[in-house]
């Protein structure tokens, strides 16, 4: 294990330091709570001469992503960050970024989507754009999100992937919380992350047309290529994590992380910062003799169906905690887990917990209730109430 130099800082600043050491050529951003501190810190680095980047203050998130698309097409490394309504305003451009195969890295400080107006955390924003062709990673801690930012460039810029990547960190819970973090130096990052030099780029010396029309005779093949790139990412991401672990001395394994799942009868699954609470809950329950385990989904796109099925095998019931809901259906993680299970050899009982919307706290006591409910399902052998809103106030 390498000796770590740890500093205490806010999550937003931690991620800004990591991005700085990736030396993005162009940063285009528009402020929105709770993301603002990330790009504010980066603009400070540029103003102080610590970071040589073109920093574009644009008039909207639509422009921020458009500027990143243009800059990335010229073969430069780009960065932006946003939240909530800002991400939705980018929506159209997100599809262009992925369709044009531009490895833009964006941090999303996850925040609820209004109305009602709400600046606090849930996953409605990034889950709403899960079909936009972006890789999506969800961080548990400030250390993980800063590491993910660096890893994301290497994943996105890989020739077999070449897709934009969204690094999701929970608004306030991570962005505004001070934690000790270890930030790889510029030299360490340079050793891990080679310069971005794509084969195709906009260059006046060697002109090319980007953004051409895809007629019905060709369009499907382009979408197939994007889907194929996502499949490739399932192989590339663990390799990148492994190399990072070796070089930086912090362990990152696969697309998912299993926690005490080996002999578990009941497994809880979620993503993001709530994993910390769930790990504590699992520890407590294990001490009480309960056979409970936890799966953290680190990579949501591409979706790790095979890894999830392998990890769940043996469990009698699975409880999925979603900080989002597709209104009229289910939580995103739960729906996609069900998709994956249908053609698998296992048939665990499943239940979906909708919790923490709009920043409502998810304390350990609530996590324990979710466990009890899932255990109850396992013991009864059937699911009575599949979609359960946790800690909903009585009418």
């Amino acid at each position, binding site marked *: 294990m390498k000796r770590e130099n740890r500093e205490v800082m806010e999550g937003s600043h931690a991620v800004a330091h990591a991005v700085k050491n990736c030396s993005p050529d162009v940063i285009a951003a528009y402020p929105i709570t709770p993301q603002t501190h990330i790009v504010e810190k980066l603009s400070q680095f540029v103003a102080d001469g610590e970071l040589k980047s073109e920093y574009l203050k644009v008039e909207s998130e639509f422009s921020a992503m458009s500027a990143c698309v243009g800059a990335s097409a010229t073969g430069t490394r780009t960065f932006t960050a946003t939240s909530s309504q800002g991400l939705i305003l980018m929506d159209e451009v997100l599809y262009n970024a992925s369709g044009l195969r531009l490895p833009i890295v964006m941090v999303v400080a996850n925040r609820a989507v209004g109305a009602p107006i709400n600046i606090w955390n849930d996953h409605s924003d990034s889950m709403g754009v899960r079909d936009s062709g972006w890789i999506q990673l969800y961080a548990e801690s400030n250390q993980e999100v800063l590491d993910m930012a660096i890893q994301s460039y290497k994943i996105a810029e890989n020739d077999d992937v070449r897709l934009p990547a969204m690094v999701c960190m929970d608004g306030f819970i991570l962005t505004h919380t001070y934690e000790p973090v270890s930030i790889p130096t510029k030299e360490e990052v340079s050793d891990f992350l080679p310069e971005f030099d794509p084969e195709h780029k906009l260059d006046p010396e060697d002109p090319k047309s*980007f953004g*051409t*029309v895809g007629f019905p005779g*060709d369009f499907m093949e382009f979408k197939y290529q994007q889907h194929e790139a996502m499949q490739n990412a399932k192989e590339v991401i663990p390799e990148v994590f492994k190399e990072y672990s070796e070089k930086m001395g912090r362990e990152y394994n696969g697309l998912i992380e299993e926690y005490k799942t080996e002999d578990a009868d009941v497994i809880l699954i979620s993503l993001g910062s709530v994993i910390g609470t769930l790990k504590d809950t699992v520890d407590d329950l294990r001490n009480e003799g309960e056979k409970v385990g936890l799966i953290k989904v680190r990579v949501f796109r591409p979706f790790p169906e095979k890894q999830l099925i392998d990890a769940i095998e043996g469990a009698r019931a699975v409880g999925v905690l979603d900080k989002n809901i597709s209104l009229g259906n289910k939580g995103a993680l739960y729906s996609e887990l069900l998709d994956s299970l249908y053609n698998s050899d296992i048939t665990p009982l499943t239940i979906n917990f909708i919790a923490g919307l709009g920043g409502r706290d998810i304390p350990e006591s609530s996590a324990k209730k979710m466990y009890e409910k899932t255990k109850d399902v396992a013991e009864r052998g059937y699911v009575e109430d599949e979609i359960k809103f946790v800690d909903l106030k009585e009418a």
Partner: protein
Amino acid sequence: MVNFAGIAEPGSTKNYKTGTWRTYRPVVDFDKCIGCAKCWEYCPEGCIIELEVDGKEVYETDLDYCKGCGICSEECPVGAIEMELEEED
């Protein structure tokens, strides 16, 4: 197989002959045409060609690309451009 991300050589749009999209075809009466180039100015496709007929400078449409929008006919100050329905020969 298709190329990567639809990235193409510059100027390749001219390989797509859009004239087949046309329902109405502009037909220029060279006797009426005064060579003012209004059609050339207004054509959204840039497919008006200058030519000389009987020593007179006139304008005509490049039918490989003309989509038949009729703007040239609308704008012609002397009514020299008629839009005629395309019919299979």
